[in-house]
């Protein structure tokens, strides 16, 4: 049963090729023509045979009629009704005929009727077969040439596309095997272009990152240089020296934080850090983030409230360490922009749809200025000076969200304040295939 199904599938696949269809029509037409011709010929040749045979018998009758008139009608009757002859008569007749050399060994050339027939048949049929096959061969050749020319064109076009990194000039859109090959070749060429483009972008990105890092480091570095120089000079009092050293320490911290964040973002954006996405309870991750921010919140006197929706146990595929960091960044931002006092807490709210899980961090602070909204996730962007950090927290959180197959958006809700929405798919989109081109340095640690 499966064999039949398989066989029919094979047939169907073959039939989808236009060349196969053309070939089939061709063969069918030639076959039909050949059969018709053969039929016609057979009719013609048997007619001739009959005529020749009748002529011979008539001649015999004529001679017999002249010599022994009473025998002639009998012979005629026998010729007219050969079914009346019996096998014994046949045997007898053969004996008699043998005496005259009329046996089966008699050469065909000596029996004029048969000889002529054989010659005629032989010549015409062989000739006919030759002609038919000749035509068939020509047509088949033409078909093959057509197919092969297409293949050749495709090959040349692909070669050109690869060499010069341009789209293919000759393209084919069709069903059948050649169409499939052409499609894959065309996709290959496009993919190639895209990959090269991507590589260029990656190079550019790297350049930009390096430039950013060096730019951001320039200030603290020069600051450090100045203070170190001053201390080296020695013309500094111990108290001031201590101050200087503390400043240097601060700058160093800042540089460390900067480099770490930048590298983190860079690695994430360049897809160099594969996240371990495992279904895990989100509640724990939120707890982790809360732990990180508790001290800051207490210092600032801002309350963080977990909505009852967040209390529900929910599981979503994510990397808890990274996601906790992202949530922590959001909370930090919210806390830093919230007024003190328990009257306006920072809320964490969960929203669930059939496809997504949304985690909302809402503060009731002044809210982001709408004209700053599009830029809030840009690196080093700081809407106000009221936050610590270098303006990398939100971009990092966004990148982490995107690596989770989700997204991070900021909006201004009706009641005022700011809302950050972290959207995660309950089941990540299937990956289009291995996109990893880099070896990860260390999959588990987020360090250099």
């Amino acid at each position, binding site marked *: 049963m499966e064999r039949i199904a398989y066989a029919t599938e094979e047939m169907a696949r073959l039939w989808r090729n236009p060349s196969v269809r053309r070939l089939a029509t061709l063969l069918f037409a030639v076959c039909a023509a050949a059969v018709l011709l053969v039929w016609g010929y057979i009719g013609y040749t048997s007619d001739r045979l009959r005529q020749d045979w009748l002529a011979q018998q008539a001649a015999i009758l004529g001679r017999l009629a002249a010599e022994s008139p009473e025998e002639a009608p009998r012979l005629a*009757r026998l010729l*007219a*009704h050969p079914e009346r002859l019996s096998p014994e008569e046949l045997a007898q007749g053969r004996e008699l005929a043998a005496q005259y050399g009329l046996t089966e060994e008699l050469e065909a050339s000596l029996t004029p009727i048969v000889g002529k027939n054989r010659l005629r048949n032989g010549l015409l049929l062989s000739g006919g077969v030759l002609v038919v096959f000749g035509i068939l061969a020509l047509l088949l050749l033409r078909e093959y040439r057509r197919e092969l020319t297409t293949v050749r064109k495709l090959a040349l076009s692909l070669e050109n596309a690869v060499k010069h990194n341009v789209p293919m000039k000759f393209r084919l859109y069709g*069903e059948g095997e050649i169409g499939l090959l052409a499609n894959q070749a065309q996709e290959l060429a496009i993919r190639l272009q895209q990959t090269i483009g991507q590589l260029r972008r990656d190079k550019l990105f790297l350049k930009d990152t390096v430039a950013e890092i060096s730019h951001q480091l320039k200030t603290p570095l020069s600051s450090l240089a100045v203070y170190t120089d001053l201390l080296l000079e020695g013309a500094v009092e111990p108290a001031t020296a201590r101050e200087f050293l503390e400043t240097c320490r601060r700058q160093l911290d800042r540089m460390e934080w900067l480099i770490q964040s930048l590298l983190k973002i860079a690695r994430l954006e360049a897809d160099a850090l594969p996240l371990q996405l495992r279904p895990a309870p989100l509640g724990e991750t939120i707890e982790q983030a809360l732990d990180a921010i508790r001290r800051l919140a207490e210092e600032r006197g801002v309350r963080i409230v977990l909505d009852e929706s967040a209390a529900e146990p929910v599981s979503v595929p994510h990397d808890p360490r990274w996601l906790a960091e992202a949530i922590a960044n959001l909370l930090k931002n919210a806390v830093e922009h919230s007024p003190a006092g328990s009257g306006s807490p920072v809320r964490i709210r969960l929203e669930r749809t059939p496809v997504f899980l949304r985690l909302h961090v809402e503060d009731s602070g002044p809210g982001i200025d709408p004209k700053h909204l599009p830029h809030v996730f840009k690196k080093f962007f700081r809407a106000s000076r009221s936050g610590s950090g270098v303006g990398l927290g939100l971009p990092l959180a966004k990148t982490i969200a995107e690596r989770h197959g989700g997204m991070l958006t900021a909006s201004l809700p009706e009641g005022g304040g700011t809302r950050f929405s972290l959207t995660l798919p309950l089941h990540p989109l299937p990956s289009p295939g291995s996109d990893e081109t880099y070896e990860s340095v260390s999959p588990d640690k987020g360090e250099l």
Partner: protein
Amino acid sequence: MKGYAVLSGRYLKQQRRRTALTVVGIVLSVALISALLTMGQALKDNTLAKEIRENGSFHFAYTQPDPGLYDRLKGNALIGKVGRLRSGAETPVGETYKLFVEQADEDAFALLPIHLNTGRLPQSPDEVVIEEWIAERLPGHPKLSDTVTLNGPDGRPFGYRLVGILENGVSTQMQRTSRAFTLLTEPAASPSAGQSDQLFAAFRDGVDISSHLPEFEKLDRPFATNQNVLALMGESADRNLNQVLTIIFGTLVGLVVISTVAVIYNAFHISVLERIRQFGLLRTIGATPRQIRHLVFREASTLALIGIPLGLAVGWGGLWLVLWLMIQSGFQILQMESFHLTFHWWIMGLSVGVGIAAVFAAAWLPARKAAKVSPVEAVKGAGSIVRESYRRARLPSPLRLLGVEGRMASSNIRRNRTKFRITTFSIIVSVMLFIVFHYFTQETFKMTVDQTENTKIAFELTRYVTLTAGETDQNGADAGVPDIVDAKQRERIAGLAGVEGVYGRYDLPSPSAIVPDKLLNPEFTRVSRLQFPQVSGDGKAQSSEVPVNLQLYDDGMFAKAARFLDSGTVDPEKLEAEGGVLLIQTVKPYNEDAGKKEILPLSRYKTGDVLTLYFGDQPGNAKTVRQVKIAGILSQSPFDSAYQPSALTVIGTKSTVAGLLEAAPADMRPFGTAMMGLSVALKDGADSEPVREALEKIAADIPGGQLVNIVDRQKQERQFALQMQIFVYGFLIVIGLIGSLNIMNTVQTNLLLRRREIGLLQAVGMTMGQIRKMASAEGIWFGVIGSFWGLLLGGALSYFLFKELSGIQGMPFEFPWGGALIACVFALGVGLLSVQGPLRKMARSNLIEELREDT
């Protein structure tokens, strides 16, 4: 899912109802085609077999051949069998019967219609076979192996051994002359003086008979062919019959095919229209036009795969069932002893081929249409609005008279010309099919079935009367001739169980009529090439002398004539009172030119005219001339032959005829108005045995009386008529079904497609009743237009068929009013009814659901 082609199966499943209807349509059509062809072929086969049985299987014969011809024929390569028949001397049996012993050789026994009842054929010149009925009358009532003394070929008595009993022939009984057969062994070359053997010859199998007949015709005269058998084989010199039959059956099958194609085309077209958005959607996803066509054709294939084998089974099985039922109820199929329903591969193949071709032809256009759908059309939304072109002036539709509903109906129809045309097309085809089939079957029925009362007559009491010269009574009739049975006995016979009627037979002279030339039909003269002798009756107008067949009917017979009354009255009392007669002026002469018989009127008399009759050959002699008033005109004779070849028929009551006979010379009317014979008609299904016994007794009492037993024949005739009717009406019912199916399918889907529109109308404020009125108006309009065109085309096609049928037998063309009326009423009715169903469904459904766009 294995491939996208699964879609076609799913679509079919979704539209279960429409799929089922379409499959039923295919099944019915294929069944009809195969049944028609099988029936036709079987009829032909069996008729041929019957004809061969009655006339023999020889192809041609020489009645007075030259002596050497036998040898020449025997030795001819083309000839298979040659039989010799030598006639013999007469042997009288009893006073009234004769017997001839004929000699036939082996081949002759094979070629001639000689059928054994029991025993075997003679194998030596001492043995003989004789007919059953004469065996009973021979002295000694011989049985098998007895010796029978009959006059041999030389005229002298010879004791033959009886080795076989032959079946009874009808004509031999009627003519009271029987034939017995013995073996002919003398060689052909030496016939006795004055005798020549008749030669019967048959060609070998495979010989083209018609092309070789002429050369054999030249060999010797007189030459005769086995006309009927050859004609049925299609080999007669006159190829007319076969050609005509092919054309007729071809037309009928063609019509059924067209109807099938129409049914399937409709179903497909509408199904495609319904899903046009889906097909457009498939195109947006990237299906090529070819793939869409493939889907539609796959649907068609599935339907064909289910429908065609089922159709074959139903057609074949249905026929078998009907025939089996008939045999069970004691019928003989169409007068044939053994009716074989042969399974012809070519019929099955043809039905399958036609079915497949029809399905695919029907699916082709819709497939193309589906493939051509522009993807945008599908995506844009439910249907595009067709703008009316204001260029052409339009005839206002009468629908507008029906108020706002009518106006809407008329606009709807106008807007959607294509759908309108599809719907009406199917109605037209259905109506046409019905009319043509009805016409054809009625005409064939008339042609092949004897519609006179003769089919009921099972027994004839006759007698052989010798005239004694002299005694005449005041009527001039021979006083010594009483009625064959007196009135009391006649009553008794009429009262027997199973007897339907008793009719008297009279032996009347034939007068002539003086018919003014202006009342003669010139067509008749042209067709028959008969020139009636001119007569100057009144001295004024030119008149012709036309032979007249005079008939005497008693009361019961007039009642039977009522069926055929064209004008006037058949009431015997009125006829008595006025001294009037009934006239039959439609005749059936043989048309030499066309080689067939034709039915046409001989004269153009009207009721109330006066007819001048005279007896003898002196039209001028006032004593022999009588005038009668024509009180009624019949279209054909209710008894005996329906039509005379070239004579008028005048029917009168006893007294009227008696009055007429006075004008005849005495020697012309020896029996006067005495009843010479009695025909006894049996009711259908009556037991004939008791009647036969009773009549035998009566016949024994009548001097010179004899009972002719034609019960079997009569039964066959009646059954033939009945069976023809069953088949005819069966076919008509199936055709009616197909037609109704077609109409129903189309009209309903038409409505269902406009669900949204109707929902809109409801939202605007139209009540369901108004909508129903509108839809009904549309339905009626479809019916009217469809009926109109169907009538026209049906009539035209019927006329075409009439032309073909006239090739077999000439007849007047009667427009099939009956069939047309039924068809039209039916079409209107079905159209109207099929509108109600979907409307009711729509009334129940939610308005908002309807308004939303369908996916």
